[in-house]
């Protein structure tokens, strides 16, 4: 079981309020991802849930019980750190056994659980090595192994993949998603990589300066961002924002259009412009186009689109995919 509810929690360091009053319900078995720019309080929020920091005010409930004052070990949560935080002087086996030993399990029980975890995480061959003798991905798996053997109510991940190289990151992403499907345990995952967020999450929490900007499924955030910040944060490359006449014609202070929602053409279209940079990836082509009507725009074409710096192109936005925002930056429906 892993239902976590945060009720008006705040956190103040010295006289800086890092988390203003914040409410959040995390359902049992959910994979929830916190995203936001650096320094927005993602780690702090996670550490508040873990109990590694005390909340300044407010209430944390885990499975309906008040856990605000409960010490970290008693909350039944397990955390995977960005730095792995493995114990360097212990073998992999001892690392994974540590929480069980602290909880007072007997030897046979511990061995059985370690073997199970090692099998799930493909660590069986490494059990007698020290962390220093493992690769980054293996270390990460040991850290996850140490977390699963405790059978926690929820897993907390703080940017667990940011120390890995790109290929490995994709692999581990899949492994963690698979693990979630297998264990069906609540997982709270902090990242600032929005691809991770979009691909793994059941729901995403977008944070800015400790404030929740929007909570929703990845596709909700993509198709119905609540404000400019979420619209700009979710999606890659970033949504184009256009002010001036184009926006006024649609009764908005600003309109946004995603690069993938514009038709590209060499002959005709609504906005004419010159290509300033073109990025050819084979599978997609990204064009940075300087237009007269709408300023600098990024556009994406499927497959190869044969243009170069200085060529003329025409862009046609799909009208139903245009997002409108008012002067405060809130989305207009």
């Amino acid at each position: 079981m892993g239902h976590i509810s945060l009720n008006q929690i705040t956190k103040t360091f010295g006289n800086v309020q890092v988390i203003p009053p914040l409410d959040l319900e995390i359902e049992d078995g959910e994979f929830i991802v916190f995203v936001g720019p650096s320094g927005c309080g993602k780690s702090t929020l996670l550490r508040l849930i873990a109990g590694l920091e005390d909340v300044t005010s407010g209430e944390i409930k885990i499975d309906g019980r008040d856990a605000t004052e409960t010490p970290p070990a008693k909350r039944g949560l397990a955390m995977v750190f960005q730095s792995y935080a493995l114990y360097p002087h212990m073998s992999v086996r001892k690392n994974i056994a540590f929480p069980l030993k602290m909880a007072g399990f007997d030897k046979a029980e511990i061995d059985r659980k370690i073997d199970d975890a090692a099998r799930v995480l493909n660590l069986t061959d490494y059990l007698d090595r020290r962390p220093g003798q493992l690769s980054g991905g293996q270390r990460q798996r040991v850290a996850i192994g140490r977390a699963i053997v405790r059978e926690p109510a929820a897993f907390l991940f703080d940017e667990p993949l940011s120390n890995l190289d790109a290929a490995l990151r994709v692999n581990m992403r899949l492994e963690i998603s698979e693990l979630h499907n297998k264990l069906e345990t609540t997982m709270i995952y902090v990242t600032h990589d929005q691809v991770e967020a979009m691909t793994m999450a059941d729901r995403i929490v977008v944070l800015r300066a400790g404030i929740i900007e929007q909570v929703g499924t990845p596709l909700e955030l993509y198709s119905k961002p609540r404000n400019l910040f979420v619209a700009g944060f979710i999606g890659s490359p970033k949504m184009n924002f256009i002010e001036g006449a184009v926006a006024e014609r649609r009764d908005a202070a600003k309109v946004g259009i995603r690069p993938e929602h514009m038709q590209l053409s060499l002959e005709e279209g609504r906005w004419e412009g010159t290509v300033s940079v073109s990025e050819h990836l084979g599978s997609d082509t990204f064009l940075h186009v300087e237009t007269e009507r709408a300023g600098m725009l990024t556009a994406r074409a499927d497959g190869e689109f044969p243009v170069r710096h200085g060529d003329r192109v025409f862009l046609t936005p799909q009208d139903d995919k245009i997002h409108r925002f008012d002067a405060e930056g809130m989305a207009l429906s």
Partner: protein
Amino acid sequence: MATAHSRSAARLMISPAVLLLLGWMLIPLSMTLYFSFLRYNLLMPGAHDFIGFMNYRFFLTDPAFFSALINTLLLVGGVLVITVFGGVLLAILLDQPMWGQGIVRVLVIAPFFVMPTVSALVWKNMFMNPVNGLFANIFRALGMQPFDFLGQAPLASIILIVSWGWLPFATLILLTALQSLDRDQLEAAEMDGAGPLSRFFHIMLPHLARAITVVVLIQTIFLLSVFAEILVTTNGGPGYATTNITYLVYAQSLLQFDVGGGSAGGIVAVILANIVAIFLMRMIGKNLDV
């Protein structure tokens, strides 16, 4: 240093330092070795005959030698135990965020800057003096008999004095080691359900093992040759109660003017120090190469 050329260049460049060091060590060592086989007493001028191992026989069969050996080991061991335990505790204390941390740290380091002779004199005259020392006054204020530290428990007193001087060194090394401990590890252990004591024994202490090894090795080297503290407090007495090997060599060659005997003692001390070093390396050296 990958190529043969750069390796030989490197050898060439370090050779002056190596030669200097060799000269520095080898000349006194071989002179001492040479003297130790001679009848060479400043009170008996004349020929310095070669007398084989006579000096060694006298030194090793001297009843003072055995007690000096025991005293040396007790002194080294006692100071090591006190400084390592005290150092770990102090390091943990100083690592806690507290008010006036900077000043407290400087105060803790301060004894290291006091010369051994000075610190021993201060301890002897201001603290341990049975008539007007601070401790005597405290004892009297509490209505007890003043305790004559250097008379009743001379070796323990010297261990205390030497420990006081070396505690800052141990604390400093252990504190820096403690500060290099990854905070995440402690937090992970906390989440894993380890209480403060478990965290200390399972996370901090293993992390400190290497630093403790360094402290033990370095201190042992210096503690085998403690001299000033003994000279200014007890002069090796009462009897031979506080005579260590270093002091015995001194007494032999400079108080009895027996250069040959003193040299033999010096060589014995060198051999003993090496035996201790080998044992130490065996016991704890494995900590260094993880």
